[in-house]
């Protein structure tokens, strides 16, 4: 048997030794604004809760003789209102009422809304339609207007205001939670739970609810402040708290009557509302950042137009004559991702060269760094977190890592163009495809609209798009995957590039379409003498199109040579094993020899050969020092101290 246990003991230990993720609460406190919000909120809530115990004046005791006393006057720290009541006492008691009402409304809205959302989202069909039509109807009313209508029916009063605010907020929860639930209900783990014999109630409670809970908390934490504000608003209008009961809103409403003479009476309760809502919003944003994994990864950072390049990067010196005819010559390229405290060496010193008209296949598994290499060449790796820390990218005579932004823009899409993997995601969804090709042309050539249009049609014919006049008006989503990828190729050809970098251009396509696109690409590059860097994970595809192949593992090229030679007699054990573990059509009886273990994590690469732990030929010398590429049999270069000779077997490897 050539399977391997899920993890060797060393791997298990390694994952234990890694630093644990900080707890959610610690993350929250790390966010300075959220921590500030938390402190303020705790202070406000504590003083409101403690109001009955504090040595405060009776909030409702009037004292007409002492009306509108200024702040800091004797016995009245915050002064008195129009009836001579103590402002500080009223403020704390009013805060108590406002908080209680706002929170109650939020909890009611969250509970009812989430329940509706869960039911509608999971049940789907008629139930969903009925419930959501009703929710839509509620949302068809301008927000506070519905609350007014409810108060109009029930009559003014604090409890009625509470109901009104709760009801008008139900739709927000219902919509949000339904959206998440619909997405979750289609997820495969819900199907898996069904196949495990769980009934609908159990699935909602144990499979969906735990995954929806963060969204409920986020929605709640970002709406509580708003609901406190709105209940205060109703009281301000005289529709909420009725005298003598007072909340912050009704205090403000009373203060408004003496605004011109004693602005302080309005200022104080308003400021308190502001402070409460602000602190809740700060805290809510913090909670959202902690609970929303997309934000947690820092993924929302804006990528720069060009990858950051380290100032004092180095590159290996080589003899000049060796590669003078190359169109692209990459020396010691290093690209890193800095995520948190760890450094991922995605590309750890890559050398490549491509001659004019040549197709080089760059092959590797996911995480090997092949795509990052391709993106690094013209600075398309997003920074942050990407960073080019070493190497040189010589395109003809220019170092692409050193040219000015303007020169780089002229090269991108000009002499060096790209074809990416998934054409649905890589074409702009909102522009017709013809316009997108025309844009690529006009970015580099001074053509007017009609000239550009003629060129677009010509390009579309070259990539064999049937009926180009009609198709150029189409949007990407209206075309099939194969046609979309042809559009991408037309765009890449727009300015007669010397080099096309194709990053898994056929991976997202069906095999029959893939064959057509490969053939097209192969024909075009031969006709035009364009060099191609073709990135793929598929040895079959590489065999079809590449003149030479370079195999990548853990951020470095481990073997390179003519495709036929590498495929037939690889020197590096990794290449051999990678070829052997793939089923091949026409050889159904062949044993599949799996490669044991997994590639090393690129933020924790071992010394010596990165493949040593998985290699049946590994010896002591493989585990130390830097292992250089060396010539083997005069045709292949491999980064291996114990390379294979033709006919060497690796059987019994795993």
């Amino acid at each position: 048997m050539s399977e391997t246990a899920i993890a060797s003991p060393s791997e298990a230990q390694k994952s234990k030794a890694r630093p644990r993720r900080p707890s959610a609460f610690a993350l929250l406190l790390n966010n300075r604004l959220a921590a500030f919000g938390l402190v303020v909120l705790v202070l406000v809530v504590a003083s409101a809760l403690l109001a009955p115990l504090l040595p405060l004046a009776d909030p409702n005791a009037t004292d007409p003789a002492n009306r509108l006393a200024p702040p800091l006057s004797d016995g009245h720290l915050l002064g008195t209102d129009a009836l001579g009541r103590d402002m500080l006492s009223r403020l704390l008691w009013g805060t108590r009422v406002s908080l209680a009402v706002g929170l109650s409304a939020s909890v009611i809205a969250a509970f009812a809304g989430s329940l509706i959302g869960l039911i509608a989202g999971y049940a789907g069909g008629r139930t969903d339609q009925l419930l959501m039509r009703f929710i839509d109807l509620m949302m068809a009313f301008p927000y506070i207007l519905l609350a007014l209508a409810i108060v109009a029916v029930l009559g003014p009063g604090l409890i009625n205001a509470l109901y009104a605010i709760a009801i008008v907020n139900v739709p927000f929860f219902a919509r949000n939670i339904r959206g998440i639930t619909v997405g979750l209900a289609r997820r495969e783990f819900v199907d898996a739970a069904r196949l495990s014999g769980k009934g609908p109630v159990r699935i909602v409670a144990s499979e969906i609810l735990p995954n929806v809970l963060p969204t409920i908390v986020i929605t709640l934490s970002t709406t509580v402040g708003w609901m406190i504000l709105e209940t205060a608003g109703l009281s301000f209008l005289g529709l909420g708290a009725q005298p003598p009961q007072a909340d912050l809103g009704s205090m403000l409403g009373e203060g408004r009557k003496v605004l011109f003479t004693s602005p302080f009476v309005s200022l104080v309760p308003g400021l308190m509302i502001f402070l409460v809502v602000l602190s809740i919003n700060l805290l809510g944003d913090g909670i959202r950042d902690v609970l929303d994994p997309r934000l947690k990864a820092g993924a929302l950072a804006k990528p720069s137009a060009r990858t950051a390049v380290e100032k004092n990067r180095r590159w290996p010196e080589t003899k000049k004559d060796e590669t003078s005819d190359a169109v692209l010559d990459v020396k010691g390229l290093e690209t890193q991702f800095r995520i948190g405290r760890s450094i991922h060496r995605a590309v750890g010193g890559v050398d490549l060269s491509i001659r004019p008209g040549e197709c080089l296949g760059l092959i590797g598994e996911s995480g090997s760094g092949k795509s990052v290499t391709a993106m690094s060449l013209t600075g398309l790796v997003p920074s942050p977190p990407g960073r080019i820390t070493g190497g040189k990218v010589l395109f003809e005579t220019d170092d692409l890592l050193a040219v000015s932004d303007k020169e780089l823009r002229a090269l991108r899409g000009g002499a060096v163009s790209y074809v990416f993997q998934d054409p649905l995601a890589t074409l702009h969804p909102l522009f017709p495809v013809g316009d997108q090709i025309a844009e690529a042309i006009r970015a580099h050539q001074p053509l007017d609209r009609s000239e550009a249009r003629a060129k677009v049609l010509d390009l579309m014919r070259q990539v064999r798009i049937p009926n180009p006049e009609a198709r150029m008006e189409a949007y990407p989503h209206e075309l099939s995957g194969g046609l979309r990828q042809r559009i991408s190729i037309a765009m890449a050809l727009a300015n007669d590039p010397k080099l096309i970098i194709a990053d898994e251009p056929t991976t997202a396509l069906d095999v029959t379409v893939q064959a057509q696109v490969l053939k097209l690409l192969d024909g075009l590059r031969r006709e035009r003498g364009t060099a191609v860097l073709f990135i793929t994970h598929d040895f079959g595809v590489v065999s079809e199109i590449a003149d030479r192949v370079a195999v990548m593992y853990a951020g470095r090229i481990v073997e390179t040579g003519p495709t036929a030679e590498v495929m037939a007699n690889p020197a590096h054990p990794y290449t051999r094993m990678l070829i052997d573990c793939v089923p091949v059509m026409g050889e159904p009886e062949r044993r599949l020899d799996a490669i044991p273990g997994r590639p090393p994590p690129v933020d924790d690469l071992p010394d010596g050969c990165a493949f040593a732990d998985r290699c049946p030929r590994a010896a002591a010398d493989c585990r130390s020092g830097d292992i250089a590429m060396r010539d083997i049999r005069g045709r292949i270069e491999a980064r291996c101290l114990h390379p294979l000779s033709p006919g060497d077997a690796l059987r019994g490897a795993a």
Partner: protein
Amino acid sequence: MSDMLEIRDLTRRFGGGRTIFGTTKPQLTAVRGVSLDLKRGETLGIVGESGCGKSTLARMLVGLDRPSEGAIRLDGKDLTEGGAKALAARVQYVFQDPVSSLNPRHTIRQILEAPMKHLLRLNGSERKKRLADLCEAVNLNPDFLVRYPHEFSGGQAQRIGIARALAAEPDVVVLDEPVSALDVSVQAQVLNLLDRLKRERDLTYVFISHDLAVIESVATRVAVMYFGRVVETAPSRKLFAAPLHPYTDLLLNSAPVPGKQRLRAGGDTGELPDPYNPPSGCAFAERCPRVEEDCRRIDPPLEAKARGDDHRAACLHPLPAD
């Protein structure tokens, strides 16, 4: 060997019906009259490109979706007869995306115990014994049972997915692209594991894939699907050696083979017919190099040609044996 699973004239339509204004909604037929038999102990490979209906077919086999027409019979009894739980105890499913088929908020133990609790009603000590057995079967370190899915790589997660499917002790396992989300070096580990489990546990597989090489290496019998129909079915060796249907031939010639360069000419754009407005004749006619006038009128039935009763094709002008 007896037929264990009989699929008869299975059709699945989506959409359709009328809006409240009385206009008809667009209707899409994902699976159009598929009939297949599955024998105990075999691996039926179903191969086809995106949109051919293979996943919809798979979901109907395990009861995650209901056919609009037709029947699926397990040992002569209609699938839906005994209820969802009885079916799940016999037929299980392995998902394409191993990570998303595991609830991120459940531990591996919770995930693996669910079928034992709800389908087999095992008690605590029985479950414990069963878990140990499963862990050994898929080479899962028992210490990992307390971990959460995000701590595992794709290959590891797929083993857990397989263990989950086996937890209910099914007879038939439907594998929907079980290795396409995995890296090639991990693919082989999973394929080998599936092969061993099948032999050890006397399982019957329905193995769905778009990868012809994978299908050829695992399947004893193959069904090729195109645009919602089975266009050809035959024992694996026969089909790969000499296909009858031009579409199968195109598929076989399109798949790149390591170490071979053999790009062939052809004006095919790979466009499928509009699923909302299917053609009346053969769905492949537009792309077919052997198309003749009658192909556009007659939708050919799946029937035996001159290669024995077990090799059938839905084609009016099948390829000759060379």
